[in-house]
């Protein structure tokens, strides 16, 4: 009897999916820093000019004018004529899974061997020595979300990481952040599999593929729940349903434990994807790329779905042909400002200047007749991506009690000439342009000149 109990116990553990690859992230040693007389965009829609910000113990402690801290250890940074924003968050990155150099042997972002690979996790592909993380950090990026590519209808799990480069992926993972599920509409999956003479080869094939996967997931979840609801006695006799990694991920979506992020360009496809989410009762967090999001901006706002978009990319595919530069602004302003717009990069150059991309999107929106403030537009690269990554309660805006992820800019972050001077992650200095302090990946060490790091910028 005792033996049997042990067996059952271990099986139950398996079903409840042992928390795998848990974050071991520890911040760098945090500092007591008082920024004085800075211009602050707080990520909550506010602009505070000539205002002080105090951070301590990794948290935001106070924002206001004339803050005085009676402590010898406090480091004072004169932020006069400088700007302070929350740390930038990129909701769509492939750093690590498509690292530099972009060699075949490290291009690990698409498990393009089957249209539904919900079983794969981006974090298992990430190369921690990718030299791109530190370049993004110099652009003020403190957190980013790494997704699998878009070759598959369902590509696998994405992961949120802190931009503190370390030797294991666990030590970079954002603690307790939910995974995402990457799905993809349109041209990519149908091209990849259609070219091999297998399904899907059309957009209708894509949609059949999503629904088949969700039906399987529903059945799997039904079986799991049916087993869970059995009495302990019955559980001793009956073996639990066989564990399936692919369906684990999909059923976690149905249990609202994973956030759904969908690569989708065309308006009508996004509208259909929303109906599939309703059919199977899950929530879509964000559509990514969405070059046609402006055509259904109200529908996105009504369903609480963010548009994670580029400022101006277009023309590389037919589904990316109808670009308007006001796309982000139109999504943001839908239903009287109830929209959720995000500027994403999907690009190792773009991630270094998301502030400039936001500046372009804002300018285009205002040219189209909106009146969008900088304080509003900064949300597109701070609080809104934090919401879409499920970490908004901890970061994404400068609010007392939140993590001190802070960027000090040399000037107005909406100007091309402004550079991130200092970047703090969890209250600890991660990069200082003036002193040259910052991370150097193992890749960068001695690779051009053995005595030097790859680049000293």
């Amino acid at each position, binding site marked *: 009897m005792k033996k049997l109990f042990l067996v059952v116990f271990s099986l139950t553990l398996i079903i409840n999916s042992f928390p795998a690859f848990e974050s071991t992230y520890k911040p760098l040693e945090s500092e007591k820093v008082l920024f004085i007389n800075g211009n602050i965009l707080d990520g909550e829609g506010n602009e505070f000019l000539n205002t002080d910000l105090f951070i301590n113990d990794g948290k935001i402690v106070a924002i206001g004018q004339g803050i005085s801290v009676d402590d010898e250890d406090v480091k004072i940074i004169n932020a006069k004529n400088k700007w302070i924003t929350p740390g930038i968050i990129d909701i769509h990155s492939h750093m690590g899974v498509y690292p*530099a*150099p*972009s*060699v075949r042997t490290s291009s690990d972002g698409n498990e393009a061997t089957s249209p539904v690979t919900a079983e794969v996790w981006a974090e298992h592909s990430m190369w921690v020595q990718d*030299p*791109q993380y530190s*370049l993004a950090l110099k652009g003020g990026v403190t957190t980013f979300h790494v997704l699998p590519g878009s070759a598959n209808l369902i590509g696998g799990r994405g992961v949120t990481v802190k931009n503190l480069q370390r030797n294991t992926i666990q030590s970079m993972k954002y603690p307790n952040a939910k995974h995402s599920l990457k799905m993809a509409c349109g*041209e990519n999956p149908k091209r990849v599999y259609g070219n091999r003479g297998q399904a899907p080869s059309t957009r209708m094939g894509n949609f059949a593929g999503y629904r088949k996967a969700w039906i399987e997931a529903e059945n799997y979840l039904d079986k799991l729940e049916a087993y869970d609801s059995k009495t302990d006695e019955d559980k001793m006799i009956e073996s639990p349903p066989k564990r399936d990694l692919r369906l684990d991920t999909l059923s976690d979506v149905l249990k609202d434990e994973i956030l759904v992020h969908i690569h989708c360009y065309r308006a009508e496809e996004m509208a259909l994807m929303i109906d599939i989410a309703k059919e199977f009762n899950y929530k879509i967090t964000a559509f990514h790329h969405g070059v046609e999001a*402006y*055509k259904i*901006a109200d529908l996105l706002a009504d369903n609480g779905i963010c548009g994670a978009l580029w400022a*101006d*990319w*277009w*023309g*590389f*595919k*037919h589904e990316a*042909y*109808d*670009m*308007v*530069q*006001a796309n982000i602004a*139109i999504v943001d302003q839908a239903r009287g400002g109830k929209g959720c717009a995000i500027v994403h990069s999907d690009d*190792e*150059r773009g991630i*270094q*200047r998301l502030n*400039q991309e936001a*500046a*372009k999107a*804002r*300018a285009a929106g205002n*040219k*189209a*007749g909106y009146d969008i403030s900088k304080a509003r537009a900064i949300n597109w690269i701070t609080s809104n991506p934090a919401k879409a990554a499920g970490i908004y309660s901890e970061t994404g805006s400068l609010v007392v009690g939140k993590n001190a992820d802070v960027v000090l800019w040399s000037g107005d972050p*909406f*100007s*091309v*000439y*402004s*550079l991130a001077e200092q970047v703090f992650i969890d209250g600890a200095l991660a990069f200082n342009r003036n002193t040259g302090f910052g991370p150097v990946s193992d890749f960068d060490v001695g*690779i*051009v000149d053995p005595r030097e790091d*790859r*680049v000293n*910028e």
Partner: protein
Amino acid sequence: MNKVIFFFALSLISIHTYSQTTVIRGGEIHTGLNEEPFVGDILIEGDTILEVSRNALKGDLIIDAANSIITPGVIAPDTQIGILEIGALSETRDGDSNMYSMGFSVYDAINPNSTLIPWNRSNGVTSAITLPDFNWDPLSGMASYFLLDGSLRVNGIPDIALTGEIGAISSGSRAESLILLKDLLEFASNLSEKDISSSMKISEAMESFEVAELMELQPRDVIALYNLLNKKLPLIINVNRASDILKLIDIKKLYGLNLILMSAQEAELVKNEIAKNSIPVIINPFDNIPDSFDELASSIRIAASLEEAGIKVMFSESRTHNYHLIRQGAGNAVANGMSYTGAIMALTSNVAKSFNIPDRGILQKGMKADIVIWEDDPLEPSTFPEKVFINGNDMDLTTRSSRLTKRYTDKRDLPNTYK
């Protein structure tokens, strides 16, 4: 009699249109030359700049440009504008030839109705150099220059440069590419005017050089090779690794090539060599990613560093649809140490000079009137042009994108298809 009157009337009209002068008044003028900007007037007649002055000029039509910034129209140096509509659709691309190599001209493929033309024009690009696809051959097809005026009869200069590529290849060796380049140039250097006077002569010339047969050259390829050396056609080579750049400099010296380096992400390591040999360089100022083992020294400093060495810098952008973003690239170059004047030159006069375009890229008496009036600093990506002139014509700045924006910000309760 009627005929005479008609002719007379017609000549009056034409006299009127040609004598109409326009003054762009009171803008901050950046001439594209290595000089400080100044506030002044620009007088245009027809397609030509008659005068640029710090003093007030008189004209028939006055355009108030006070508080605006004036620059020459941006010249885009390595695009595929006009020969590509949608990247992933090969049937909308005309950059590749199965038949020809160096003799392949893209000029006849340029589509003046491409949506990329009004889009880039409305963002300040007034003319562009369009290149055939690179195919890893050390020498491939010819680039053409044209105005983004949308004229159905394309206004431009066909075949102003040859292109080629040296560097990492997935099979074979870069040494092989360099040998091939030298063999082709050796063949070209042995060609006389007589050799290219007829197909038969060309065939004869080819027989004595194995490389011509090996490469399956066509007569027009041989003529292009001849022009490369004898007409000093600019040669754009896409290259990154520092050691490859040095090899190309040796070859340039040997054959007197008019070499232009493109991409050149490790140029900083050999900048003194490049400067000493007066080689212009086209760089992507956004690209500090070590994408390959040829680009390990890639750095955001490159623009400032090459400028400081005295090298003529031009800017490129990897996405041809948004080539106008070289403005934002120029802004980033300035943010990372390049001079503002140098960045404006990189967008305008440096391209004209490097590619022997004699009458554009500078705001100066006698030059063609390709002019942009900017609402604010043109290197800020949130600045838009107010007016764009090409050949003195005040261009319409409507784009497919602006039409769609209008349609989808129209709040009337109608289907979009009725707006």
